[in-house]
């Protein structure tokens, strides 16, 4: 069955977005991308250190993938907008993950600045996927200013702690018409599957794959978990009965009329 996720006019058949940070070496990235099936791959923009020039990450991303530069390093909307424009000038296409972080202890995003950056970049033709703390009012606002998706965190970045914000994410999934993509915190394939079962449109995983014992094998495992979770969501899991069955019928008074 065809079940594409459409974002920014692009049809995606994989609902796993893969980050490229923290891999033991860049050569693993293409293998991990292929093994995971990911079609959207995130990258970042950094100042060059002329003493230690790095390889161009784009060379390690298989052709045909959508590049999604993030704005990591931005501490406010202005910086995020600047980074996004630079990434676009670098030929990354028009997707951008807005990430504005002014808190170095928990690395939690600044929702207010994120809304401002989203508004400006969406108006400028970007496909904007903002990374936020899950908050319904913020998500509504993001939808209003033109975000292409909302990416709530499951737990603080890199913490591998899973869906700590489960209930809040559930509310976003129920209330927001944009795709909800769980970003950050997912540490194991089972957690990715859980997010998908809940109805998340996709998940973004980086640390859990890049820092696994065997990143390529873990990428494959995540790819399958995401597929399984999505399939379960589509199948409509039976609801856990939380209430005992009431004994007295409520509709017994109705007789067949007519």
């Amino acid at each position, binding site marked *: 069955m065809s079940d594409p996720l459409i974002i920014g006019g692009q049809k995606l058949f994989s609902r796993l977005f893969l980050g490229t940070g923290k891999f033991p070496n860049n050569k693993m990235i293409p293998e991990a991308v292929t093994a995971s099936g990911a079609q959207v791959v995130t990258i970042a923009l950094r100042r060059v250190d002329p003493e230690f020039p790095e390889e161009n990450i784009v060379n390690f991303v298989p052709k045909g993938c959508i590049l999604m530069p993030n704005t990591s390093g931005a501490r406010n909307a202005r910086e995020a907008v600047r980074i996004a424009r630079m990434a676009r000038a670098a030929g990354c296409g028009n997707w951008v993950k807005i990430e504005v972080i002014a808190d170095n202890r928990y690395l939690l995003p600044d929702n207010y600045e994120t809304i401002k950056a989203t508004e400006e970049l969406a108006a400028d033709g970007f496909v904007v996927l903002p990374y936020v703390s899950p908050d319904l009012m913020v998500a509504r606002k993001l939808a209003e200013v033109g975000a292409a998706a909302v990416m709530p965190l499951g737990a603080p970045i890199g913490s591998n702690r899973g869906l700590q914000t489960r209930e809040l994410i559930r509310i976003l999934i129920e209330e927001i018409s944009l795709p909800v993509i769980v970003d950050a915190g997912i540490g194991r394939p089972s957690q990715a599957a859980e997010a998908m079962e809940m109805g998340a449109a996709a998940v973004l995983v980086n640390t859990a794959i890049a820092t696994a014992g065997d990143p390529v094998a873990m990428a494959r495992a995540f790819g399958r978990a995401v597929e399984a979770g999505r399939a379960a969501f589509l199948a409509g899991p*039976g609801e856990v009965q939380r*209430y005992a069955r009431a004994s007295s019928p*409520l*509709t017994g008074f109705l007789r067949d009329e*007519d």
Partner: protein
Amino acid sequence: MSFYKQYQRFKDFDYASFFNRLTDQDIRRIINKNRLSELDYLALLSPRAEKCLEEMAQKAHRLTIQHFGRVILLYTPLYLADYCINSCVYCGFRVQNKFARKKLSLDELESEARVIAGTGLKHILILTGESRKHSPVSYIKECVEILKKYFTSIGIEIYPLEEAEYAELVFAGVDGLTIYQEVYDEQVYSEVHPAGPKRDYRFRLDAPERACRAGIRSVNVGALLGLYDWRTEAFFTGLHANYLQNSYPDVEVSISPPRMRPYPGGAAPRVMVNDKNLVQYMLAFRLFVPRGGISISTRERPELREYLIKLGTTRMSAGSCTAVGGRSGADKSTGQFEISDERDVATMARVIYSHGYQPVYKDWQTI
């Protein structure tokens, strides 16, 4: 934005074949879902779902208690005037009907208000026919000024207004709007509204939204059951409520499922809607919009109203009178339609208690 767009999406939908394809399993799966889609809601309104009413009822009952508690809000309608220039075929106030029309003077209003306030009610719903000549917005405002002294919540059920006029009334102290589309099917709408300003389908359809933009606190929409196929009408009413709730999250949205009642010399309903149909509608709506209010008026019979307490009802009218000036006795005129549950407020309160629910007279005060 307008609900009209949503209406158009489903206007030419093939309801019959959608209903035909549904299986019992589909219905059970939908009942067990946490969040229903529009089509899930439609499925629960299908003939197929009639077999699962008890399951729907159990869930609707739980959801209602979860979101509202075991509480029924009581309110009463107060008719200000029965002048009307419309020709709605189902209504006793239509312009063609010859009877002595009446409009409450402010003094008469005050005595009516006193009588009602004496029963303990704090929520009032004021009604008029459509006559900007006899019941202009300025008159409604004067009435609101008086009613504010007696009631903490004032709802209006009058002809549709412009946004600025709603804002004016909100400023004056109105916090609720009830406006029924009567019938969502545009064709039938035009048939049953043969003349008068009410022929403007869109202006009426968008009225609740204009009130939301004007800062109203609650809106109540509905279709008059009996004018057209109740399943699709219930479907559009639910979609309308859901649309309003999604677009204006700070507004409380509710529906009424009024069934056509006879009025002196009036037309019979075009479609019969039996008790089972009414119950199915309420249950399906509750599952679709768990936080949406459901208002049950005195149009319904006393025994049925009592059963409905546990089936998703959140508000009930009591001690109603559909004639202008009906309470303080003096000059009672012809009613808009016949009511069916004539019990007074104190009796209703006792009855509600006897079912394990608390009657509430006041859940809101404008500050």
